[in-house]
């Protein structure tokens, strides 16, 4: 048994990864993941606090010290099962959660040194279980005879499905696209989220008894109301995502060669355009690509463009410190040779006589007073316009909620941004028996926030299905005591 002091002496273990000069030529996953030795070494850094703060930082309340203790003991499969008690999709969260601002930021070893690499350990345990034999099935509660419809097979919907099937309900997930996974499938690239991992997580839910219906557009094939009134569903969860790309509203945005990040990434990821012509969808393979935006989606687009053989520049109107992308993603992008033009804003896109993009005019920005988000507002520098030669522009400035379900359910209450209004304690919408979560509620957020909302929704849906009522609101949070 290591002493606390000995544990704190172990440095945070890096995850081996593909070298930048290799990985820019392939779509394989960048980090290889921990080996068993590295995982145990990293796990030994965990002090097993009496009152672990890391759990408070986790939107889905994973027993973090619990699963890490099992890794310390070399019980990797058991560690994966421990994770799955609270999180049906650990292989996904281990890869794309922003742990640095959730669990890891609260880790006490991070006060003086580096926090325990919780995300990497989560990924290790889940990958180990998948690679080593049969994935264990949890015990399912007795069937309740209640049927739940879930709209959208993305992170929120998959979470609700996993929780409710375990609680004994029958679950059908409707997906409009031809493959389940939502943003994990169409948005996040293979090199960051291997599709095989998504497939395995979906297979696991299918084995638990969840029914997946692809090619089914709720709002068109059935409305939410029809699911409830005519098709035998006792409750419905809407997790339809942020499905309508925003554009900048500058001249030239409809030129050939301007893409939403959604389209750019969907072609590459869901349609596997990078394997054209083996797959039929053509990729967007150009020489000089500008990606507009500073979030994870912008980083994903830029790194995809790079792998398709382009010179890539990220154009972002604020400064580096204000980029919403994870540091790790920005770091990977920089390592791979992507250029960053920060504090620059596109003002128009120019094209040739065939309406094809030839260049983009930008203006330099400087930081002014803080805006509503607390970030200093970028303001244009007069007379600093300049032209960048580009043949492709990818607009990655966010999404608006997809209107298909609200349009076909006029009674559903919406915010003025078009997102669905929910009670945050239950995730119930304005309509009884109808719950919602993920980006259709929060706008454009993260996979784990969608999953966290899915978990809350699943709990209240379970209560509703059993009692006909939502759970009582929780008591006001107590002040709490600091962890050891």
């Amino acid at each position: 048994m290591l002493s606390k002091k000995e544990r704190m002496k172990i440095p945070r273990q890096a995850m081996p990864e593909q070298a930048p000069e290799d990985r820019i030529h392939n779509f394989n996953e960048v980090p290889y993941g921990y080996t068993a030795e590295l995982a145990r070494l990293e796990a030994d850094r965990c002090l097993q606090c009496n009152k672990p703060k890391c759990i408070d930082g986790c939107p889905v309340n994973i027993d973090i010290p619990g699963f890490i203790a099992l890794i310390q003991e070399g019980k990797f499969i058991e560690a994966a099962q421990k994770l799955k008690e609270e999180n049906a999709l650990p292989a996904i969260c281990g890869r794309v959660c922003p742990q640095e601002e959730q669990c890891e930021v609260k880790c006490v070893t991070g006060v003086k040194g580096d926090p325990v690499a919780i995300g990497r350990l989560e990924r290790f345990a889940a990958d180990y279980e998948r690679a080593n034999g049969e994935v264990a099935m949890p015990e399912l509660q007795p069937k309740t005879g209640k049927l739940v419809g879930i709209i959208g097979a993305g992170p929120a919907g998959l979470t609700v499905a996993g929780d409710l099937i375990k609680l004994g309900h029958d679950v059908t997930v409707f997906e409009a696209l031809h493959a389940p996974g939502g943003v994990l499938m169409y948005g996040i690239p293979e090199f960051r989220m291997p599709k095989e991992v998504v497939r395995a997580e979906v297979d696991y839910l299918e084995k638990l008894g969840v029914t997946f219906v692809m090619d089914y557009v709720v709002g068109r094939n059935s409305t939410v109301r029809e699911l409830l009134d005519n098709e035998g569903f006792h409750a419905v969860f809407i997790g339809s995502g942020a499905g309508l790309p925003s554009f900048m509203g500058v001249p030239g945005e409809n030129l050939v060669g301007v893409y939403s990040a959604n389209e750019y990434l969907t072609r590459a990821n869901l349609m596997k355009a990078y394997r054209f012509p083996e797959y039929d969808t053509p990729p967007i393979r150009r020489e000089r690509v500008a990606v507009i935006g500073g979030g994870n989606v912008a980083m994903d687009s830029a790194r995809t463009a790079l792998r398709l053989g382009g010179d890539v520049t990220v154009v972002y109107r604020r400064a580096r410190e204000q980029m919403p992308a994870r540091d790790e993603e920005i770091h990977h992008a920089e390592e791979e040779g992507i250029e960053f033009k920060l504090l620059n804003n596109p003002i128009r896109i120019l094209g040739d006589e065939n309406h094809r993009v030839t260049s983009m005019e930008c203006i330099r920005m400087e930081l002014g007073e803080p805006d509503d988000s607390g970030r200093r507002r970028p303001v244009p520098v007069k007379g600093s316009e300049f032209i960048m030669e580009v043949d492709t522009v990818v607009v990655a400035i966010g999404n608006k909620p997809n209107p298909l379900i609200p349009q076909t359910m006029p009674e559903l209450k919406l915010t003025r941004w078009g997102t669905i209004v929910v009670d945050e304690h239950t995730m119930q919408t304005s309509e009884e028996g109808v719950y919602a979560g993920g980006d259709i509620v929060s706008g454009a957020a993260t996979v784990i926030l969608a999953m966290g909302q899915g978990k809350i929704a699943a709990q209240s849906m379970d209560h509703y299905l059993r009692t006909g009522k939502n759970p009582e609101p929780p008591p006001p949070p107590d002040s709490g005591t600091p962890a050891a």
Partner: protein
Amino acid sequence: MFKILHKQEVAPNVHEIVIEAPAIAKKAQPGQFLILMADEKSERVPYTLSDWDADTGAVTLIVLEAGHSSRKLILMEPGDQIEHVVGPLGVPLEIGHHGTVALAAGCYGIGAILSIARAMRKARNRVIAIVEARSHYLHYYEDQLREVSDELIQTTIDGSEGIKGHAVDVIKKRLEDGEQLDLVVVVGCPFMMMLTGRETEPHKVRTLVALNPIMVDGTGMCGACRVSVSGEMKFACVDGPFFDAHAVDWDELWDRKAAYSQEEIQSVERTEPVVPLRPGSRTDTL
């Protein structure tokens, strides 16, 4: 998986494909479209619905053999399974009482106006169906259209059948002769839709065109199908497919439609059937 119930070449390179898709047939309305993928590696390509039967669950499409994706579909036989069919997508055409409705169509649009004509007539409109083709042998659905319209006019560009010229020539002449048209709906290639709009505009006849730009998901998610209408950005998949012909930016539409022509040529050279060909099936296209 969606079974092909029936397939027939109704004119050279024009195929009627009937697919078993009950969830679509139950909800389809005139003017909507489907997205098909012949197999898992296919592109997602939109096709306008021609007809459907909610009782049997069958939906009918007219597929023009135009490129790699349509060719893959056409090489399939009754009994084969299409991997993915999704729909009905798009905002249905508003079927109401308008008065006299002229439906102008060419190529796949001839099939697409079948259900529109039927619904318009049921709504007590006087329906004139005007269908154009290069030559007499390229016309199809004559009997079907005659049954659901008050008047069927066929035109051929070479004059081998019906009126010599284009559908737009018929509309132009009728408007010049003082006939009142209350609504014109055009389904066909962009050029035909643009020209028709240009002729109806001075007569202030409301003209709706069914736009068919490149799409990927078809549910509003990707924005590939954006078009400028009255200077505003619209998505053909969720705001359309029908738009005011007089407000569409046609130049932009064309150029966006041609964005992948090089890649399309590359694909066509490599078309392979989804299901290996059997004796008696079409091999001449390979």
